[in-house]
């Protein structure tokens, strides 16, 4: 967040600085102001001071994840939708159905097309994109879309054959749009959760095929997808080559040296271990991340009860 410098309040003559609450600091003014300046000038050093004690500036321990919430079916106008929140990071996902033709190689399989958009209002860094009004994704965003699609595909959450209406002629094409409304770090996890939630809320309308092959929707009850597995992700950031912390915020993402995203499916199988570049991790470190991700995925699974059998 943009901080408004409070100069008038802290311009005190040296004699008065002792009378204010807080220890006197070298440059005068309260210690809180000194901390802010230190953070601006030396963000990594500032962060190191917290990490030495095993916590992070927002009070979390190194492996704590921010509060996660998932609201399924939040957008009534979309065929399937959800909104996922991890801390302040908010990602909305909407699925629109379209009847399309299958590819020649897979005549009985539908399609899933994922597009990701980081809205201009999500953070000051992305506001510069306000000039580019098109929905075309740039490379890092496209990579994120492929990562989300890979996570969904690896778990086998979506059975593409379920999307078939008439083999070789008509299948359902799912156009999934993932929009980041608030960028506070860890976009990939939130995007994966929201995509999974949207697929859960999706209901395929009942259809009837006319004589000329055209597909019309009837008034029958819409069928939800049969979902047995879904991804439960956790992203770690790497700092100073050795420190690994979970669920990075936007500030942490600016200076961390790499990240690794691990997703487990709800039946305990690894379905995504993605580390592209950044500081290398030894085998034991990757193993440790996988253990932490496994423990977290079990916790997440039980708390996101909407994925449980009762729903």
């Amino acid at each position, binding site marked *: 967040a943009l901080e408004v410098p409070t100069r008038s309040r802290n311009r005190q003559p040296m004699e008065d600085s002792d009378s204010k609450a807080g220890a006197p600091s070298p440059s005068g003014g309260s210690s809180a102001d000194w901390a802010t300046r230190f953070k601006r000038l030396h963000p990594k050093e500032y962060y190191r001071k917290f990490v030495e004690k095993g916590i992070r500036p927002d009070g979390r321990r190194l492996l704590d994840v921010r509060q996660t919430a998932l609201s399924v079916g939040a957008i009534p106008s979309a065929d399937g939708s959800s909104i996922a929140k991890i801390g302040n990071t908010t990602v909305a996902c909407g699925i629109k159905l379209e009847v399309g033709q299958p590819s020649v190689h897979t005549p009985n399989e539908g399609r899933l097309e994922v597009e990701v958009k980081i809205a201009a209002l999500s953070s000051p860094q992305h506001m510069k994109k306000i000039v580019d009004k098109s929905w075309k994704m740039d*490379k*890092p965003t*496209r*990579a994120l*879309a*492929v*990562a989300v699609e*890979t996570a969904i595909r*690896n*778990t*086998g959450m979506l059975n593409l054959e379920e999307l078939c209406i008439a083999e070789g002629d008509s299948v359902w094409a799912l156009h999934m749009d993932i929009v980041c409304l608030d960028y506070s770090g860890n976009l990939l996890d939130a995007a994966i959760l929201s995509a999974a939630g949207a697929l859960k809320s999706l209901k395929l309308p009942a259809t009837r095929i006319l004589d000329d092959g055209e597909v019309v929707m009837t008034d029958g009850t819409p069928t939800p997808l049969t979902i047995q597995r879904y991804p439960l992700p956790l992203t770690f950031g790497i700092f100073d080559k050795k420190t690994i912390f979970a669920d990075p915020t936007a500030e942490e993402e600016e200076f961390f040296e*790499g990240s*690794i995203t691990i997703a487990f*499916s709800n039946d*305990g*199988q*690894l*379905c*995504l*271990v*993605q*580390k*592209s*570049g*950044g*500081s*290398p*991790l*030894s*085998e034991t*470190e*990757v*193993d440790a991340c*996988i253990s932490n991700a*496994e423990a977290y995925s079990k916790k997440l699974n039980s708390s996101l009860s909407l994925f449980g059998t009762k729903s």
Partner: protein
Amino acid sequence: RFRLDPPPDAMAASGGSVPSSARDDGRDAYELRPIKCERGILNRADGSVRYCQGHSCVMVAVNGPMRVRQKEEIIDRATIDVVFKPASGQQTPRHSYYETVIQQTMEYMILTQAHPCTKIAIVIQTIEEDGSMLACSINAACMAVIDAGVQSRCMLSAVSMSMAPREGVVLLDPDAREEKQSGTTATFAICNKTQAFVLTNLNGRVSRKLYSQCMKLALKASKQRVEPFKTKFFDTVFLGAEFAASRDKKDAKDSTK
């Protein structure tokens, strides 16, 4: 032959059987395809390499450090621009994903802070696709970067493998048919200085145990087979250059006598 010997004990101990039958091309399960590499093939590029793992063939050209557009420049580092072109057909989002992944991996390998406000362009052209394309591209890009003489932190070796999760069988360096058959593949890129993973990529689902074994196998394969190949390759290049230089000096001395 690029066989790993001895075969890792971890596989046998865990109950995952080591397949006794050879694969289609006569390899063992833990055998890599023969690596072929030619350098300096494009005379307009600063560094170029044609790298083949069996039938998977990739040509990489590296240019840089070169001028960069102001939109893309970074004030304290070099920008790394990767273009990945498939052998045939249009670029799909998956190829853009490969571009991003390879770019982030190369950003670790190349000492970008030695060349601020410049660009290092890596163009990867697939010539033949026969499985393990991501691993092949990373290996080739690493060689081309060294051929171009761009200062690098380390050397990267990439290995890919396909797993059959139910049987616990892992095949190293799968070709296209094996990749399609198993449906589950993993690619690893390892830094030779720290023997740590710079890149991990997983397609499909596996158990945690199988994945740990894959990591161990990847480290072993890269250390025993891929890295020695690369070091030997460049050693011959540099020694050859040194020999030629000393011979020229000797000729110059002889001619002045």
